[in-house]
């Protein structure tokens, strides 16, 4: 009975041509590889400065051969201001993701399992929210936060970040929970589980991949956000890495290039690691659209 649910589309098999290459094909291939190399150089060369300078004891504003040293990273973790940036980023990222997932699983379950008036309108509405560019609402959002006395607090920022990512999470988890066969849950009820127990024992374990994807998308969205913390936070001791890097870079006269590059590497590491985990999943599903922004 669940065959239709689990049935996978069979991937189309690409036709391989086995005849020997004509001169035209050779030219084509050389051209293709040249284009690929150029594109990859375009994509990767800008990273040279950050990577090389982070391990350079005498880093400057330009690419140079590094005098190998991990001094910059040591300084990042021991100097007065920078470790706090990482801690704040982690608090905002993890707190926001946790809140987002709790709201998302509950809401996604309601959307997947109950038929109620306005459900379709709600789904459509939260899809439409994507059309609103963030800068267009940030001003009014700031005033609302001022009135709620939530500006310049990590709690306020966590709340806002979690909610800004919630429409995508709801869509994702609604789809994932819908694909768990209802019969499994019913079987659990028959075995004497309450509805909540059935959710915890049956649904949650089965939506692991979707939940993981939602968690990583949310975390990466919050982690990379620049505008919201820039507007909401005024105290230096609350700044996350994004704002800290910006302040350090804009301090034109005293930029510590090595420390800046090391901070950037520390800042990049979590999303880079997470992305390698979700990449396959993201490319397979239509979630691609959720990554941008």
């Amino acid at each position, binding site marked *: 009975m669940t065959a239709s649910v689990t049935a996978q589309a069979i991937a189309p098999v690409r036709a391989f041509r086995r005849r020997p290459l004509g001169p035209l094909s050779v030219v084509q291939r050389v051209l293709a590889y040249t284009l690929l190399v150029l594109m990859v150089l375009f994509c990767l060369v800008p990273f040279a400065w950050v990577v090389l300078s982070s391990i350079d004891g005498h880093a400057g504003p330009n690419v*140079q051969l590094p005098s190998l040293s991990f001094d910059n990273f040591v300084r990042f973790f021991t100097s007065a201001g920078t470790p706090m940036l990482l801690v704040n980023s982690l608090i905002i990222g993890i707190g926001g993701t946790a809140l987002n997932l709790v*709201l998302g699983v509950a809401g996604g379950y309601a959307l997947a399992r109950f038929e109620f008036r306005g459900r379709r309108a709600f789904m459509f509405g939260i899809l439409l929210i994507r059309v609103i560019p963030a800068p267009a609402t940030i001003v009014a959002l700031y005033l609302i936060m001022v009135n709620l006395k939530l500006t310049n607090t990590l709690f306020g920022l966590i709340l806002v970040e979690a909610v800004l990512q919630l429409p995508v999470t709801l869509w994702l988890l609604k789809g994932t929970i819908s694909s768990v066969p209802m019969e499994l849950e019913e079987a659990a009820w028959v075995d004497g589980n309450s509805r909540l127990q059935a959710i915890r024992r049956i649904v949650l374990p089965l939506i692991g991949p979707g939940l993981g994807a939602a968690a990583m998308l949310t975390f990466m969205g919050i982690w990379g956000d620049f505008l919201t913390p820039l507007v909401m936070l005024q105290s230096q001791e609350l700044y996350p890495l994004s704002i800290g890097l910006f302040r350090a870079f804009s301090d034109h006269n005293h930029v510590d290039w090595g420390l800046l590059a090391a901070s950037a590497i520390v800042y990049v590491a979590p999303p880079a690691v997470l992305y390698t985990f979700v990449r396959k999943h993201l490319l397979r599903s239509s979630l691609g659209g959720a990554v941008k922004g």
Partner: protein
Amino acid sequence: MTSITSTPIRAAAAPQSSSPGRRRSKRTWPFVLLLLGPGAALIVVFIIVPAVYGAYLSFTNTQLTGFAARDPKWVGIDNYTYLLSSSDFLSSLGQTGQFVLFSAIIGQTVLGMVAAILLSRPWVRGKGLWGAAVLMPMIVPEVVASLTWASVLSNNSAGTLNRLTGLFGADPTSWLQVVPMVSIILVNIWRGVAFAMIMFQAALEEVPVELIEAARIDGARALQIFRHITLPLIRGPVFLYLLLTTISTVGVFGLVYFLTQGGPGGATRLAAIYIYQRALQFAQIGIGSAASMILLALVLVLGLVYVRLSKVEV
């Protein structure tokens, strides 16, 4: 918790995975409110209300500080007439238009399509590695993306781009001063190629190989095949991509603000930066909100245009 234990419903043996198990009774409302209520309420408070409140603010002279902060007044469409006759704002809209057109609609789309097509060739080796390299600019936070380009566009002779042009005998240029708009367009193309590539790869996979083969046997050249077979078949995804990238490019703030802060002399003051500076640096909330509403209206119009275009027959 016992109230939550309820009689199991016989799931209709519907093949659609979305329908079984839903109940149409008044008793579902408590569950729905309990589960979806908090999230929905927060979405309303932090996303919907700001949009509506922003519309209201745009008709007032609200300020962050000073007299108008305590006692904002209704000023009708004054903010709008001010903005639409302000050369600063109009040029910022124009810059946003250029930025979207050249970086997203042309640059990212063309390069993303080229990358997707190259990586869809069956004989290309190391697809995973090529793809991963192209993805790098997208997965790093925007602040880091800007920082990497700060070194490329650096104005001294050892800057990466200056070294490259130096190979051809050109003098060092301070790119962000001389060609600021071109520079940020280049940065945004770099950042967005991966997203275009992903969207187009998914679309190309749906194109039946048989059609391509048949056309090839009929003697069609690669470009003809792309123009007359592939492109019409992936029209829907392409317009969806254009819609998404337009929206997100209009919303680009940090990537540009980090590099130029709107300068030099307002040459890269995109609408998003204009709104930020007006409302939060000059404290003119009313004018900033009106600018937001104009931007929002333009995005909605563009969105509708895309949706219409994507449905037009080929």
